[in-house]
Structure formats: structure tokens, C-alpha cells
């Protein structure tokens, strides 16, 4: 660059298309066009439309929908009800999937089989899964009959149409996503680091805490964020195996009933916007926790 400008007189700039190409602007960028149109039409426009709708009120101030949401305990309470479901569900899934993912990296043929088995719940779909759970966990379902027959309980356990039914549904549907994501992150950690740590005197526990976990943390945080968004948006299972009028009245259910039962679209949009807000907040907390717990990771910095 420097040598060329030195050789050429300062007035004779290279043609515009060459200068643009040096900045990475080439006709090839046009290939992005379909994706941009898609994103604008299916994401940005509906989002902005909903945002605008949430500020639309008949006569009241700009924030009156939000004020109404927070002043109505029935609506306000949905935030807590949803968080109460999503956070424990994500934690349970992460605790179950992390050791499995770490143990399975490098496993050759078994890896594929288990992956396929775990993909099954994804392919089933929420409605069919909820239907199955109703049979399986219901008062006359296998679980209760087994527990009654073995004499472990006297009365059937109430496992559906409440908090637990939705919890089971979330865990079953989200686990495969989480596991597959974690597995790909875990496979990216070179086992040489753990071997080096072992040679230098680190016990299995120290190896996990000082080497594996810090290297795994970025993947864990990303996965946790995605899993939380998935669990937070829980809607079909909250309706089908939950108690949509009470303990599992999630924000998704609230938005649905505002829109299609009360026909209050502005309030439904408000609930949706608040959902997005809470999700964003939790993601920020997760990422903050990860940089707080593992402060020295700086894979981005390069010399």
C-alpha cells in the first residue's frame, strides 16, 4: 500500500471499484441480499411492528400498557412463573448434559448412536410429546401404577397439569439441543491440556476446575443462553401438560390469551416485548457470570 502510493502521483487514485474491493466491498456481497430481505421481512419488521403496537393505547400515555402490566398482579406474576420454570429447567439440563458431553468427546462409534437416540425428542414435536406425557405421568399412567404397585406411594402423584408436567416437558425437549451444542464445544477442547495438567500434578478435580471448565465456559454460557430462551418461550407444553390458568401461566400463555382471548393486541405485544427484555437480561447475567468466574480467558486477543 505504502510503496504504491509513493510510486504513483498523489492525484492518481486507483479506480473506485479497486478501492472498494480492498475494503471487502465486491459484487459478491449481493449474495447476501436474500438473507437480508428475509431477516428484514420476517424479523426486523414484525419486531418493530410489535414494539410500536405495545406503545399504542386508546387515549392513555405512551407507557400505559407497560404500567398496566406491572400494576396487574395476574400479568406481573407471569414473569416470576416463567422464570421459576425456565431457570431450574436449564440448570438441571446443564448439570445432566455437561458430564455426558465431556465424557462423550472422542468416543468414536458410540457417539453417533447416542446422538441419534438423543435427537429423537426433537423430531417428535411438542404436542405429541405432551400427549405422551399425559399418558405416562397421569394418575393412571405407568409411573403412578408402578409406584402404587410397588407400594412406594398410597395415592397417585400429581405429575401433570401442574408445574412438574411442564418441567418434564421442557427438560425432554431441550435436553437434546443442549447436549448436541455442548458436545460440539467439548470436542473442540484439546485433551492435551488435561494431560499436561495431569503431568504437572493436577488431580482430576483440579484438572476439571482449572483447565477443562475455563476452556468450556464460553460454550457453556452460549448454550445456557440459548437453552434459557428456548425454555422461557415455553407455550404448548404449558397449555397441554401444565396448568395454564395458574402455576404455569407463563408469559407465552399470557401473551396468547391477551391476543386471542381478550383480543388486546397492544397488551399482547407488550407482554412479548417484556419477554424479550427478560430474556436479554438473563443472557447478560449469564455472560457476566462467565467472565466473572473465568476472568482470564482471552481467546479473542491475538498478538
Amino acid at each position: 500500500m505504502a510503496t504504491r502510493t509513493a510510486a504513483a502521483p498523489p492525484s492518481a487514485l486507483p479506480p473506485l471499484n479497486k478501492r472498494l474491493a480492498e475494503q471487502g466491498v465486491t459484487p459478491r456481497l449481493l449474495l447476501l441480499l436474500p438473507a437480508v430481505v428475509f431477516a428484514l421481512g420476517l424479523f426486523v419488521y414484525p419486531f418493530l411492528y410489535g414494539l410500536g403496537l405495545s406503545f399504542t393505547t386508546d387515549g392513555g400515555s405512551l407507557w400505559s400498557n407497560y404500567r398496566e402490566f406491572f400494576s396487574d398482579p395476574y400479568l406481573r406474576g407471569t414473569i416470576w412463573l416463567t422464570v421459576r420454570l425456565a431457570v431450574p429447567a436449564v440448570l438441571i439440563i446443564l448439570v445432566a448434559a455437561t458430564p455426558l458431553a465431556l465424557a462423550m468427546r472422542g468416543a468414536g462409534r458410540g457417539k453417533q448412536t447416542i446422538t441419534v437416540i438423543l435427537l429423537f425428542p426433537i423430531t417428535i414435536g411438542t404436542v405429541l410429546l405432551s400427549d405422551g406425557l399425559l399418558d405416562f405421568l397421569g394418575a393412571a399412567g405407568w409411573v403412578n401404577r408402578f409406584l402404587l404397585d410397588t407400594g412406594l406411594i398410597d395415592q397417585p402423584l400429581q405429575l401433570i397439569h401442574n408445574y412438574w408436567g411442564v418441567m418434564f416437558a421442557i427438560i425432554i425437549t431441550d435436553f437434546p439441543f443442549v447436549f448436541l451444542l455442548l458436545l460440539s464445544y467439548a470436542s473442540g477442547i484439546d485433551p492435551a491440556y488435561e494431560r499436561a495438567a495431569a503431568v504437572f500434578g493436577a488431580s482430576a478435580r483440579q484438572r476439571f476446575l482449572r483447565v477443562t471448565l475455563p476452556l468450556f465456559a464460553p460454550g457453556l454460557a452460549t448454550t445456557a443462553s440459548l437453552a434459557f430462551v428456548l425454555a422461557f418461550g415455553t407455550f404448548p407444553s404449558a397449555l397441554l401438560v401444565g396448568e395454564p390458568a395458574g402455576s404455569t401461566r407463563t408469559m407465552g400463555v399470557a401473551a396468547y390469551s391477551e391476543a386471542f382471548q381478550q383480543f388486546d393486541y397492544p397488551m399482547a405485544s407488550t407482554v412479548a416485548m417484556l419477554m424479550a427484555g427478560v430474556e436479554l437480561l438473563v443472557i447478560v447475567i449469564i455472560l457476566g457470570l462467565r467472565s466473572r468466574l473465568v476472568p482470564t480467558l482471552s481467546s479473542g486477543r491475538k498478538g
Partner: protein
Amino acid sequence: MHSTGGSERSAAEVANKLAGAAPTDSPNADKPDDGARQFEALRLDGVTRAFGATDALRDFNITIRGGEFVAFLGPSGSGKSTALNCLAGLLPLTAGEIWLDDRRIDTLPPERRGFAMVFQNYALFPHLDVRRNVGFGLRMRKVPKQEMKRRVDEALTLVRLAHKADSHPAQLSGGEQQRVAIARAVVCEPPLVLMDEPLSNLDAKLRLEMRTEIRRLHQDLGLTTVYVTHDQHEALSLADRIVILRNGVVEQEGTPSEVYIEPQTDFVAGFLGYRNALTGNVVESHGRQTTVAVGDLRLVGTCPEVMPVGDAVVRIRPDDLMVCDGDDAGPNRIPLLVKVVEYGGREFVVEGVTPAGQRLYFMASQAPRLGDSVIVAVDPENVRVFSPTEDGG
């Protein structure tokens, strides 16, 4: 990257301090034994490691004395890295025992052996800076903070990287990463340092510099070292003793000059610079002097022990073949047709073929023309005759 005289001197001073430092008392008996720096002998007794049906290492016996620098030399698949990993505890043995003086260590997990290792790809922890990488072993050994800082600083000075203490591995060049890996190993003052082809990822110039650096560190610190390599030059220049492995079995063992001057097998000779191999038949053998028929040629050479009449391989170093005038009579005159001439700096490397079509490489101070006929001569002392290697490996 090279240092001034000042830092050279300080590095040497630090080395003396490190070497002279009294071994610290281990505060925790369960932790790796930081005090066991010196030992009499490390004994590998019939160490065998199988992968499936194949033995990667078979009945490996060797005794390493404290302070010694031993190189395991061999091509890939020879079992040298397997032997190293068995020593480190990263591979369990299929059979055999490892003894450190009167303590059996092959049953201990790697973290209880108290060794240190330099890995081929360095394996520096990417999430830790240079200081924490080097201090990792000390931290695991629960060395007090003050002492840890002092020793890490000393080790970094020793490898001339004190100014990079706060960098992360990704910010360092290959050579710097290698020096961090070495500092991480020596800072623990371990009884045994294991090095797994540590120079194989460096370019030629850096490899030469680091080779000298490793030798200097070993002379200064006196740490017992086992060094795995496939590079004969590294093994010859660094080691006090070389163990040459082939297909999981020890082929020859000895000091660098022993194995270089007196290779015992065709394989060892081929690995240590006897580039020329001619196949022929033993026609006569008196003591160690043997006459071999190679096509129409008669070559007089030396063999490790009396050879029976039969198949033989003749090994000659390119440097030992001298171009001579045609009428100069004497033994071991080989007529050659010049096929390829390479410029080799001081001399030319010439490839020629014998009348029987066998290839020979020799050195010439003046470049012969392609297609020329030349006659080369070689001293019978420098013609080595061996039984053929059983298999191609």
C-alpha cells in the same frame, strides 16, 4: 530474539541458583514429591504396551541414572513416544514395571509421579498467561506464593522471556511458546523431564537455536531428561546416551559416538547417516573383515561380528566416498555414472549408479558433469556390512 551478553550472564546466574537451590520440603505428603529431584536410577523393567493385537512397545528395559540426558530415537511407529507416555503415566502399561530407586511408580497416576513434560504441540494452557502457565506445576504442588513468584521469574529469565510474563500463549511465536513450555517444565525442578519431539514444529533455524538452548539448560540445571526424537542430529548433539528403537524393540543403545561410529545393525546405520545401501552376498569373512560381492564389484568392509556367507547389506556414508583417478589402484574402487548433481554449499551432493544399477550418493568438491563416469574409493573401515533387516521397516 537473541540476547545481549548481559542477559546471557544473568541467565547463567539464575541457572546456578536454580540448580543449587535446596529442594523444598513438600508440605503435603499426598502431593507430588517436590523434594525427590535427585535419584540414583530410574529403571524400566520389561515395559510393554499393546494397542489391540500389536505391541507398540515390547519388553523395554533401560536404567536411567540421575542427571543423565537420554534420547529415544526412532522413526514414527517405533514406540519411542509410547515409552515416554508410559513413563509420564499417560499410558498404562500392559506389562512390566517402572521403579524410581526403590519406589514403584508405574502404578501411580501421572499427577502423583512429580515429573514434568514438554509436549510436541507445547500444550500451553490457552486461558492462562505465561506467568500462570509456568507457575501451574508449582501451584499444584502448593508452593507458597512468594516462592512461586520468585521461581517463575527465575525460570522465565532462564529462557529469556521475562518480558513476556503477562502475554497469553496465542500472542507468542512458536519459538517463544516452546521456551515457555520448557520453563514450565524446569521450574518444578522435577526428578525427570520428559520431552516429546519438542523441536519438530519449529523452522530449521529456530530448531538449531533451541537445541543449543536445551543442551545449555541441561548442563546448567542437571535435570534428568528423557528426550524423544526422530532426528538423529538432535539425538547425537543433545544426549549422553541414545536408545534407538524400531517396531517397539530396542535396536541399539549407547553413547552418541558409540552408535555413530559402531552401528550394530543395518537399521541403525541407515538411521545414523549411512545413506548408501548396497545389497550383495558375503563371499569371505575373516574376523570382522568381510568381502561382499555386489554385482561384479568386490567390496571389502567391516562387520559387527563374523558374518556367515549369504545375503548382506553394505552401508557407506556419502562423506566417506572419495572421487579418485581411474589408474589409482587399491581396494574398493566403484565406477559410477553421474545422474544427479545437487549444490550443497561447501560440496556437491552427487547421485551416481553402479554398472549393476544400484544408486550411490557421494560428495564432490568440483561438480562432475551429468553422464560422466567417475570412480570413487572408500576405506574398508568405512564400509559397514550387516545382515539384511528382516522386514522393510
